């Protein structure tokens, strides 16, 4: 074929080079939006993809160095905004965009990375509540993983000194931001586990930008927290900052200050509680003893317990009564005897000689022998006799003794005759 109008004949390479120069000059910096498709990640580390929209598509490449800086995972179907330069791949005569930066459409790269990792770790079960270890109530030693140049360490130490002055704290200084920070944090957590001296760890830092806090959103930190046998309290930034570390940790503190409040109880409060319990213990026991004593007292005062004593008293009373009755009976007996005696005495008296004498009889006795004279023969004339009268006595001398009847010459003046011999 003859070239017309004397036009320059170009080699394929030459033309391609010209196209390339032209494209690269005109599109040395483009910013375009599209959907990721046909994503490929060969072993070289470069990432190849096709960006498309409803009407067209264009090849794109992310060289290894750019790909490693990518925070989030590219996925097919993802809407992205890329910045890059157009170039031509000469061996195939194709043009492509060399991507210098890529952003998810609608949100920041970090935000997407955060969501992606959160989603992945959650599916893996790293956030499961049942995987969370309980915090010790009174840790003997608290490990702290943070920067010693930041505010967090000061906040933690200040709060601990106030709440629990004798707290034992071991700090493992780490960088908390910048390249390598996440690895350092992860290593520090592993070291605390290896050392074994701390009962609980506080891992965190003070507030900062999302970029500053990024180390706590990295997978290596999440894995280290999850692998830790020592319970971990995460304490990253301020209340509004939520990191992956917060989800994996056994307990999330909103701030480093709050972590220090969570990790140890207030000593003064504990001492007060112990004192109060001690008081209640003693009071309760005293109450119980008082109760027992009162019950004992009630029993002692009860009828059943008093009964034996009552019986004794009753017997004693009965005895007293009997004694009284006995005395009375004796007295009555004596009285009755005395009465009978008096009666007998009365009757005796009535039958006695005195009353006979009253009636005019008399008793004559031999004066000397006091022998009662019952017959005349007992005496002889001239013998002295004594005659007892009701009132007084006579002494006389026998004149004559006359057989059966004796006539006694009475002394002159005595009209009475002894009519009957006694």
């Amino acid at each position, binding site marked *: 074929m003859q070239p017309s109008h004397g036009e320059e004949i170009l080699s394929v390479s030459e033309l391609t080079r010209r196209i390339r120069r032209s494209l690269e000059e005109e599109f040395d910096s483009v910013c375009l939006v599209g959907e990721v498709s046909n994503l490929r990640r060969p072993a070289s580390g470069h990432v190849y993809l096709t960006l498309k929209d409803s009407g067209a598509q264009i090849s794109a490449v992310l060289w290894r160095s750019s790909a490693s800086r990518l925070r989030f995972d590219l996925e097919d179907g993802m809407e992205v905004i890329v910045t890059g330069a157009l170039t031509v791949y000469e061996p195939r005569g194709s043009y492509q965009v060399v991507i210098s930066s890529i952003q998810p459409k609608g949100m920041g790269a970090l935000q997407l990375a955060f969501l992606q990792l959160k989603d992945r770790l959650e599916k893996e079960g790293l956030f499961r509540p049942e995987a969370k270890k309980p915090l010790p109530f009174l840790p003997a030693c608290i490990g702290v993983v943070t920067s010693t140049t*930041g505010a967090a360490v000061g906040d933690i130490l200040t709060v601990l000194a106030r709440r629990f002055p004798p707290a034992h704290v071991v700090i493992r200084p780490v960088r908390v931001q910048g390249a390598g920070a996440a690895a350092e944090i992860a290593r520090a957590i592993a070291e605390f586990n290896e050392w074994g001296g701390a009962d609980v760890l506080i891992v965190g830092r003070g507030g900062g930008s999302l970029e500053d806090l990024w180390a706590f959103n990295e997978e290596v930190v999440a894995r280290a927290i999850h692998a830790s046998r020592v319970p971990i309290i995460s304490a990253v930034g301020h209340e509004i900052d939520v990191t992956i570390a917060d989800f994996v940790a056994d307990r999330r503190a909103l701030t480093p200050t709050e972590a220090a409040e969570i990790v140890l109880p207030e000593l003064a409060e504990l001492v007060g509680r112990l004192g109060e319990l001690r008081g209640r213990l003693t009071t309760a026991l005293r109450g119980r003893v008082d109760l027992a004593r009162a019950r004992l007292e009630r029993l002692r005062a009860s009828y059943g317990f008093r009964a034996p004593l009552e019986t004794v008293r009753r017997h004693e009373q009965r005895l007293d009564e009997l004694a009284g009755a006995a005395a009375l009976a004796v007295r009555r007996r004596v009285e009755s005897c005395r009465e009978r005696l008096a009666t007998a005495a009365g009757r005796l008296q009535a039958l006695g000689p005195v009353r006979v004498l009253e009636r005019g009889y008399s008793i004559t006795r031999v004066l000397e022998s006091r022998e009662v004279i019952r017959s005349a023969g007992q005496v002889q004339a001239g013998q002295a006799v004594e005659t007892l009268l009701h009132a007084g006595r006579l002494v006389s001398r026998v004149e004559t003794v006359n057989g059966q009847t004796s006539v006694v010459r009475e002394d002159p003046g005595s009209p009475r005759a002894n009519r009957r011999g006694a």
Partner: protein
Amino acid sequence: MSFEKTLEALEQIVEELESGELTLDEALERYERGVAAHKECTAILAAAEKRIEVLVQGADAKLGTRPFEAEDGSAREDGS
């Protein structure tokens, strides 16, 4: 037994004693245990000793601690 467990035991003993449902023997036994628990808790608190140290790796690659000295905060990495 840990401080928390001992403290919980003490609280339970006090509640049992306060319930008034124990026999005198039981009450005395609880009281003795309560006093022992209180003593133990108090001893644990008294044994705590203030120490602030830094975890370091020794020459023999073993991890140990040395006293902590607060560093100058002028080069703070975080802004809070």
